[in-house]
């Protein structure tokens, strides 16, 4: 039987309303990518108009990307942790710790390679420690991360004392001009994308994040999966420590302060739920970090008072998250 436009709907069938159409769009597999990307484009377009085209300049857009690079690196790595339904806000302190170790390694050996290796190793060790505590003892990751955040930053303060440590700025500029950070990030991003979306690691993480008990019963080892996720996160933390050193050539006690919240903001703005599950994706961190960076830069260029920038950021953040999230039937909580 043909369905023509003139056919009436069978009795009892309800016509789809606006909310239904919205729900259908939201459930599309591509929605987690399209929506944040659209938001980003709209933000750039909006600020471009507001600044009479000033925001569209190549230097500005490159600046947005450069400023987002460190958060994007950590956020991309942290999607592995979030995908499994865990949380960690100690990334900033861990990054500072890695960076301090990296700078000391460089100053001792003069080798950039050694500095990178030390940063990566320390990052992996620190984050793996968090994962280990959770996997072995079952303590919630958010609690572990709150504690470790304080511990790592206290240790960094004790090590650095009143000083900052630095490396030769000229070397940093050389590395920066050679595109070291950009190339490294792209390689790392591609690595994470492949690992997350094309290998069993990502599938397991999403399964565990969706329903850990179910995943366990299908044979997925929760502990191993979690340890892997934290190890990858550690790689991201170590790499971002390297980026941080190259960007500023100096490391102080304030490095990485508040990064845990920024990472969560970025991941959520990028369209991923921090409770993980099947709709997790590895590109959310990059999208979200660039969005935040564009927002900050745009607000400043539009001469918004620094006192108000934070408030505007908060409102925009809530609106975007609300639009991007599926409204659950009951209240969302860690229980569910």
């Amino acid at each position, binding site marked *: 039987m043909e369905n023509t436009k003139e056919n009436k709907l069978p009795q009892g069938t309800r016509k789809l309303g606006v909310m239904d159409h919205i729900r259908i769009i939201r459930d599309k597999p591509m929605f987690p990518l399209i929506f944040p990307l659209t938001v980003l484009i709209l933000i750039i377009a909006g600020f471009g108009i507001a600044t009479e085209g000033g925001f569209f300049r190549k230097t500005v857009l490159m600046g947005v990307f450069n400023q987002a690079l460190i958060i994007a690196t950590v956020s991309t790595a942290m999607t592995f942790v979030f995908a499994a339904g865990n949380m960690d806000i100690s990334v900033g302190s861990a990054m500072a710790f890695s960076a301090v170790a990296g700078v000391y390694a460089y100053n001792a050996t003069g080798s950039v390679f050694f500095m990178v290796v030390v940063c990566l190793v320390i990052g992996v060790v620190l984050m793996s420690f968090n994962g280990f505590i959770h996997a072995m003892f079952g303590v919630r990751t958010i609690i572990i991360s709150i504690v470790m955040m304080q*511990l790592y930053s206290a240790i960094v303060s004790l090590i650095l004392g009143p000083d900052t440590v630095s490396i030769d700025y000229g070397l940093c500029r050389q590395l920066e001009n050679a595109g070291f950070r950009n190339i490294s990030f792209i390689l790392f991003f591609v690595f994470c994308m492949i690992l997350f979306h094309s290998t069993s690691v990502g599938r397991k993480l999403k399964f565990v994040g969706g329903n850990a008990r179910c995943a366990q019963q299908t044979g997925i080892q929760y502990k191993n999966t979690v340890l892997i996720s934290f190890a990858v996160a550690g790689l991201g933390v170590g790499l971002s420590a390297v980026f941080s050193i190259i960007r500023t050539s100096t490391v102080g006690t304030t490095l990485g302060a508040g990064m845990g919240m920024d990472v969560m903001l970025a991941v959520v703005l990028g369209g991923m739920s921090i409770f993980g599950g099947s709709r997790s994706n590895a590109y959310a961190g990059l999208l979200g970090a660039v969005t935040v960076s564009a927002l900050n830069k745009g607000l400043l260029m539009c001469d918004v008072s620094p006192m108000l920038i934070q408030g505007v950021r908060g409102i925009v953040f809530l609106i975007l998250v609300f639009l991007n999230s599926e409204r659950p039937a009951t209240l969302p909580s860690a229980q569910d």
Partner: protein
Amino acid sequence: MDGKPRRISCSRDGMTMKQNLTAHKVKSILKMLSLPIMVFLIMNTIDLIATGQGVISSGTDVRALFRNILTTFSFALALNCNLRVGRMDLSLGSQMYLACIFGGNLALQMGLGGVGVLIFSMVLGLLCGLLVGSLYVQLRILPMIFGIGMSLIFECLSFGAYNQQGLMLYGKPGISILSEIWFVVAVIVIMIAVMTFMFQYSTFGYKGRAVQGGQRLASDAGVNIYTNCIISYTLAGTLAACAGVFNTAFMGTLVPTLDMGSNGMFFGSMFPMFVGTWLGAFVGNPVMGVLCGTISVRLLGLGLAKLSMEGMVQNIIIFSLFLLFMILRDNMSKWSYRKKRRARMALAKQTRLEMGLAEA
């Protein structure tokens, strides 16, 4: 052990059961009190050995201790309102700032003194909590993420108001009452009474425990989880404001902050809260448990401060103990089960051995 069934002795009038119950209650209370007492004894000993002075060595020590206990107790209770059902509200610190700055300044402008500052701040805290709770119920964004967003907004509002001065209580008339021990104790007692009633004996508390068990189940059983949630947030905001007022009274001033700087008290109150809920399980009263947990952690902090340790070192010690406690708390039952299992297996082996010998 001998294979004969045990007889439970029970007299006609139930006196023995009552005695057993009383003994059990006393035992539970002692268990709950054991931690703060132990902490006091240990820190006192260490301080005496290291400095020649105990943890509490003067009247002003007592005053400061009571004040800090009230501040932390109030904030830990505020945390507990939502955390017990799995909602980590990161906006609590910013609610405290907003409520104290606006409420406190309003009260000072009206010349109302310390009590007025407290009442006005708590009212503003109630309103902040109500707003956050209502928005949360409407928007249904993940609580942690929602808390971050609201925190950004509230901090901005607090910062922009009153010429960025925040709330200055030092030197203001009528504020000294907030530092008086009798007043602090009275507030603690009232808080215990009110919160115990709310958590243990009111419909809100009953329904809250149902939600704690399972949100969906509670909803299906007819509990209005949304109203319960809003009340939790409202209570939390009120308690946070109370904590903020007494903290400001001690510090002299509450300076507004940006960039999620208001989270300091949130993270600092988690240890007392977790210890408290664990202790409270002994007596089935989380409020008393949180009070004991607060006293324990505060005594620890006071004892470390007396040792003239660097702030970072104090933090390392306190947070390391926090981590150890959480590991113990989450694994004690597991280890206890494994211990009992090993004992049963050993018994089984022994029994089989005996039977084997008997057969032989």
